């Protein structure tokens, strides 16, 4: 067995809103191996974003614990990159200065920051837009800028929360391929949250289906060869076999049909 980078141990999370308790997660356990690309699939409201926030250290679990690189998570760490569903580029900074931001916080020199940012801008295909402000960017360009800002800090663990769900189908596939290209050979670990089964199969080494309150109801390895093209891979017969199984798991989705991971 390979190294486990993230271990979620029997985690529960309850929120209190206006005096009423909401159980977002209960009894969630999950191991993520170092260097793997794991997709978490679940219907909206199953707690997948909450789980990602817990792994990022933005919030603390009510019960249980999360261990990352051998340490109990108690806050944000520099080796973790988080790409949220919503763009969080600072509106008063242009693309270049937004991408430089993580290095600015680490007090790198300006010339060094700029050199790295310019290189990444090229890698994500944003050349010529360095001086544009976020509100002047299209949805796809804003995603690329957010991706570059996350990657510039050279994280080992990438948390992606439905990163392409707001894009149109064609742009989504383009971005999915680009993410796979950027990830390939990096050795980075990815936890990719989505509600789109096809996206999960096309991208992941492993797909984990979450049921109510974030419980793992299905967990399976995806044996499709890499490098993958997210469009071509959909034409393979085994793709549809897996898709069928995952649909079943997702629609069953109740604790009674739980499958041990």
């Amino acid at each position, binding site marked *: 067995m390979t190294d486990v980078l993230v271990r979620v141990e029997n985690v529960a999370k309850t929120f209190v809103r206006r005096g009423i308790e909401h159980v977002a997660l209960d009894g969630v356990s999950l191991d993520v191996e170092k260097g793997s690309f794991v997709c978490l699939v679940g219907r909206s409201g199953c707690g997948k974003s909450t789980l990602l926030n817990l792994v*990022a250290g*933005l919030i603390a679990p009510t019960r249980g614990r999360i261990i990352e690189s051998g340490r109990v998570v108690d806050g*944000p760490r*520099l080796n*973790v990159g*988080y790409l*949220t569903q*919503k763009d*969080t580029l*600072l*509106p*008063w900074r242009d693309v270049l200065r937004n991408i430089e*931001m*993580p290095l*600015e*916080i*680490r007090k790198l020199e300006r010339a060094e920051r700029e050199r790295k940012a310019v290189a990444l801008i090229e890698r994500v295909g944003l050349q010529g837009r360095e001086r544009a*402000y*976020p*509100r*002047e960017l299209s949805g796809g360009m804003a995603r690329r800028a957010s991706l570059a800002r996350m990657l510039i*800090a050279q994280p080992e663990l990438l948390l992606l929360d439905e990163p392409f769900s707001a894009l149109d189908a064609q742009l989504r596939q383009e971005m999915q391929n680009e993410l796979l290209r950027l990830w390939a050979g990096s050795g980075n670990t990815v936890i990719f949250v989505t509600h789109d089964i096809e996206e999960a199969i096309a991208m992941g080494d492993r797909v984990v289906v979450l049921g109510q309150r974030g419980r793992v109801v299905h967990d399976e390895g995806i044996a499709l060869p890499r490098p993958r093209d997210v469009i071509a891979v959909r034409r393979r017969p085994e793709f549809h076999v897996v898709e069928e199984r995952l649909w079943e798991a997702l629609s069953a989705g109740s604790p009674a049909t739980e499958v041990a991971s």
Partner: protein
Amino acid sequence: MKPGYVVVWRLVLLAAILAAWQSVSSSKTLAFYVSSPSAIWNRELQWIADGTIWFHTFITVEETVAGFACGAIAGIAAGFILGPNRTLGAVLDPFIISVYSIPKVALAPLFIVWFGVGLTMKVVLATVTVFFIVFFNTLAGVRNVDPDLVNAVWLMGGDSRTILLKVIVPHAMSSALTGARIAIPYALIGAVVGELIASNRGIGYLIESAASQFDTAGVFAALIVLTILATILNALVDAIDRYTSRWKVEANLSLRMN
């Protein structure tokens, strides 16, 4: 319609208004009330020649600029002090709202008692008018920072000082500048109202003294100077707007504390 036509039609409309005005004022009785474009034009030329226009305009601009600067600085400072401190904000809320609710012109007599009828009283009146607009915008800017932006910087490894300097201050400043932009014409209102109430110089005084002598040509001539001044200030506002609109946040016109 082509933009060229719009300009042409505007000029046609202006000419029509002036012609109608001039013909109406051929009646001696009506001319007493509305003067006439030619009389106003002559008065304008006379004021330019003897320097009256420059002297009074300079006074009004001075009061407007001083009042705007004092009000904007005080408003931004108060917004940044009260913004993060919700308890203090809640305690002061009814006091600030009640002072804000007073029509500022009603404070003028009090300011005359405190500061006399000189320049200071107009500056204070403009300051008070500007202060609230800038204050409420700064306050909203400090308080309405998107928590997702704060989280994003936190995840990058930013501490609370970084979050303050790189997220809260820039966000609040853009909101404060929006308030300041809105407040520019109000500074002029404050200054002119002060001059109308008690003064011996400034455009407001020019209007008031001409009216007290039933000199309608003088009143209109001074109003035209004021219109030009206000137009220049609005153009300035537009220029600032274009400069910042590439990234600016939405203007806050609700003027609320909580």
